């Protein structure tokens, strides 16, 4: 099946995930079945500790479920080895973190170009792509600055440019506005809306903020490791 024929960019079926805590195990995800359509901006909403980040990590191939199926862009992530999972992350998904997670040793341009270089693209091509994205983010005058020299909003925009540099099928955003003031946070969310509208970018964003969740095309609530049957607009 070709990528374009895939209706859902994300599909999970009865996904369970638990972690050892002392001698017992804590079940974080309990049979999560969830879909995100291609080109959709979907939001997972829930309180702290409800399993949002764990689900996001599963979608990004950073960890594997105890049982169940996690399929992203048609790829069953549970079947991937470490090397294949790394290649998948490099080529198919882009991560945006709450605390930006830019590498402090590199300037903004090198940070944004890094995933392209990790994917095997030449330094020149990677930098060219990154510069174009950073220009789109309004950071073209800050290319040689290190992260510490930028504001939180600028850092997050640089992180989004980094996430998009390999033109991923799916953008995974973990509380992207969590460290930003409301005005800057709104700018970042507007950027997501623009990316979805202009590029048809599939986005999965997690947040604990109900108002932010409502901005997405579709929002689901995760409660105690399970997707709530109610639509967030009904909550």
């Amino acid at each position, binding site marked *: 099946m070709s990528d374009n024929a895939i209706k859902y960019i994300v599909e999970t079926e009865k996904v369970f995930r638990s972690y050892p805590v002392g001698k017992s195990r804590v079940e974080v995800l309990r049979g999560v079945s969830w879909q995100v359509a291609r080109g959709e901006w979907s939001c997972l909403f829930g309180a702290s500790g409800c399993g949002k980040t764990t689900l996001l990590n599963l979608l990004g191939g*950073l960890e594997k479920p105890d049982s169940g199926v996690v399929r992203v862009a048609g790829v069953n992530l549970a079947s991937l080895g470490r090397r294949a999972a790394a290649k998948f992350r490099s080529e198919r998904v882009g991560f945006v973190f709450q605390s930006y997670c830019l590498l402090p040793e590199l300037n903004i341009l090198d940070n944004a170009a890094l995933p392209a270089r990790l994917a095997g693209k030449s330094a020149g091509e990677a930098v060219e792509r990154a510069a174009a994205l950073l220009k789109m983010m309004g950071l073209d005058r800050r290319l040689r600055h290190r992260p510490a020299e930028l504001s939180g909003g600028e850092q997050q925009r640089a992180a989004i440019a980094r996430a998009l540099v390999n033109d991923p099928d799916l953008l995974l955003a973990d509380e992207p506005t969590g460290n930003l003031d409301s005005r800057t946070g709104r700018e970042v969310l507007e950027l997501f809306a623009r990316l979805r509208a202009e590029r048809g970018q599939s986005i999965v964003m997690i947040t604990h903020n109900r108002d932010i969740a409502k901005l997405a095309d579709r929002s689901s609530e995760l409660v105690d490791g399970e997707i709530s049957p109610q639509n967030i607009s009904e909550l």
Partner: protein
Amino acid sequence: MTLRTELFLAWSYLRPKRSAVSLITVFSVLGVTLGVAVLMVVVAVMTGFTDIMKQKMIETQAHFQVHGRGGRMLYSPELVIKAVEQAGGRGAAVIQTPVLVQTDGRRLDTRTALFGVSADALRKELGFDRYLKAGRLSLEKDEVVISSDMSRRWQVGVGDRVIIHSPQRLTSLVKFDGGGGLKLNPEASAYLPAEFRVAGIYSVGKYDFDRMVLFVGLEDAAELIGIPWGAAGAVFGWGPDPFDQKTMIEKLKDALPGYEVTTWQQDNAQFLGVLATEKNMMFFLLIFIVLVAAFSIANTLITSVYQKTREIGILKALGATDRAVMSIFVLQGLLIGTVGSTCGVALGFLVVTFRMNIMNTVSTLLHVELFPKEFYYFDELPAHIVGSDVAWIVIPSILLCTAGALLPALRAAVLDPAKALRYE
């Protein structure tokens, strides 16, 4: 991920900036630099010392010697000398024997080696004129050239006489009678010791040589030990380059199948072996400095892996493979080793170049003479940097530093990306 990207990230992690990590990097590099520099200096001094010892050695020795097989006399040494000349060298017939020396006061010196040789050979091949302290370098009939040490011990000077006994002739005068007693050997011809007049006094400046060696003419020596005139114990040879005479020696061996040809290196194998062993021991002892530096690198990188756990998680989230993450940290060890070794070689080269200025400054500051001339034969601390020695220092140093990075690199490689991202 390409090697260029891994190198780029490794270099970025090491790049000096105002932070503790960079300071640690600088100290790691310094550790390797100092280790390599110390190794460079010590090995250069040991090599220089060995070179000078070899040079001093061949100043008073033949480059090679030709003997009859099983210690046989050479009854026609001129044929051997001709073969030596055809092989590209120069030769001189020599008789070498221990003797007993008696002086007027009936003092007997039993530790003397007599060399029967022509004055011409002494002059041309060993440059003996420069060692002459009194009298003439003359070995005419009944003339002897002794050392200034002998002159002092025996209290004889130029023109004085000494009596030289041949131990071989003396021992041939008596034989065991079979009943446990001794009797005169009826077959032995009458023997009288030879009397010589001191023609000259030399001083080479080498303790053993000056203590033991005296020279007489070849014919006098033959007469003293009772061998036919014109015969010799050996032919001593000299070539154009004592350090590169393999081809000439092979030619000579082919031309003289019934003879034994030995080089000065073979004749002094034990001493040269001690020098080589000493140099190797110094190398192996001092390489431990670099080993300690490698441990320091391992320590630094283990700390760095802990400090950068979250960054490693980010790299993996962005698509870096385990191998790529491992390479980044191994390359850090390699970079530290390479930069440290390069700086070490440069520092070592500087110290070797300015060694006498450094020593003089330290001597002046501490009021202690670090290199007393009376204990050594040299005016300055010898040193010689050899390319192969530098390679033997640099390559193991870089390898040790890279090996030091392996353990932390492995830890970074196996980090679980999700756990690493949660690390605070």
